[in-house]
């Protein structure tokens, strides 16, 4: 494939935002074909991440992604079924990094359930705020007609819900969450509040700190509603 010698490759290779693990993760003894496929894949994901983050989900096309990655449209389609799947993969790789941090921190969080929720979401905002438009793309993708069932846009990844649910369950055990409330309903309120907070990035140019502050107030209001009375 000619795509390999495209000059764009050099640009991508020196892209500082490229995750360091990607190149290292390439199996050393894989055949040249696998190696090339893995290279195409990571180049496509890098280009897609930048494009979704600047142009949004609807504003980005597969053709553009291919051009920026320096590969042919055809070779994008040998690896990914659709735009939605590319974004899913981009977000999944990011989610792994975020989850690693959550796994490390969440078990050690102290304070009331509201405080633990605040700390947990602050980690989220700090992580996503550098690429708010990418996250908004992630949300917008949920409503894409052409999205394959395998894609996991915002709202269809169980990970965030599980973390929140665990914190609430712990709150019930510790006595500051009313055991009679609908925990799943409360989880949805928190997930919703989190998603909506990203609006502030668009409408008011809010940074991580401003979004965290807005989320803190919402958590306070929700926590006030689920404390035992």
């Amino acid at each position: 494939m000619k795509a390999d010698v495209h000059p764009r490759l050099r640009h991508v290779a020196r892209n500082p935002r490229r995750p360091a693990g990607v190149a290292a993760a390439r199996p050393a003894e894989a055949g040249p074909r696998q190696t090339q496929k893995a290279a195409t894949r990571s180049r496509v994901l890098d280009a897609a991440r930048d494009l979704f983050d600047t142009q949004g989900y609807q504003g980005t096309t597969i053709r553009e992604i291919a051009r920026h990655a320096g590969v042919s449209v055809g070779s994008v389609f040998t690896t990914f079924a659709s735009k939605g799947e590319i974004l899913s993969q981009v977000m999944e790789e990011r989610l792994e990094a975020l989850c690693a941090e959550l796994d490390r921190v969440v078990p050690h969080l102290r304070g009331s359930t509201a405080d633990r929720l605040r700390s947990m979401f602050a980690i989220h905002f700090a992580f996503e705020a550098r690429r708010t438009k990418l996250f908004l793309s992630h949300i917008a993708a949920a409503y894409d007609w052409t999205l394959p069932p395998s894609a996991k846009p915002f709202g269809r990844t169980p990970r965030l819900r599980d973390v929140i649910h665990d914190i609430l369950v712990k709150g019930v055990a510790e006595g500051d969450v009313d055991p009679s409330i609908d925990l799943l309903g409360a989880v949805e309120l928190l997930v919703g509040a989190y998603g909506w907070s990203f609006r502030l990035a668009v409408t008011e140019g809010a940074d991580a700190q401003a979004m965290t502050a807005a989320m803190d107030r919402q958590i306070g209001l929700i926590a006030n509603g689920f404390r035992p009375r």
Partner: protein
Amino acid sequence: MKHISPNQVAGETAVKMPTRRALAKQQTRAKVLAAARRLFSESGYEGATIRDIAAAAGMSTGAVFANFTDKSDLFREIMGSDMAALAETMRDGAARGRGVEDALLKAFTAGYAFYKGQLPLARAAFSVSWAPQDGPVLRNAPQVNVLHELIVEQLTLGVQRGELSQEAEIKLRSQMLFDAYLSNYPQAIFEGWSLDALQARARDQIRILLAGARRG
């Protein structure tokens, strides 16, 4: 203020009777809107093109552009009229409620029932609402504000009746109630939740969101 007699009003109306040309234009608009509504529901906002919409309406793309500046104009027009009808339905629901919690629940349930038959269109609207350019425009549309205002009104009434405390943080609370109302749509769209299930979920959420503002 100038007094206007009923006769005068009738007279003015008579003068403003649409001409045949205006009537034809109105019919064209209605045809385009009906075709657009169907295609947005079938293929989503992104998937529906002006060309397809024109074809479905049985006219040229030029005729469509003579009436609407672009696709987003067309979509805003559809959402605008739907939202106005939705606001009225939700207001009727709220009026039947006893107390702030019940009024909000009845308003929300009326809203879910309104869209239950046209979830694909709701889905298209959510898709647009998260788009970088069209999103803020749709979310700040006057018709959307009317829905938000409706919740503010109910909370204000709750404070006046003494159900909610004076420090009810109405601005934040109404926004969160509206967000909660909207955030249950994905359950209806993607997981086929019944009206009963949506209502039960909304009830729990309204309860949680109001609990902190209850008096006593």
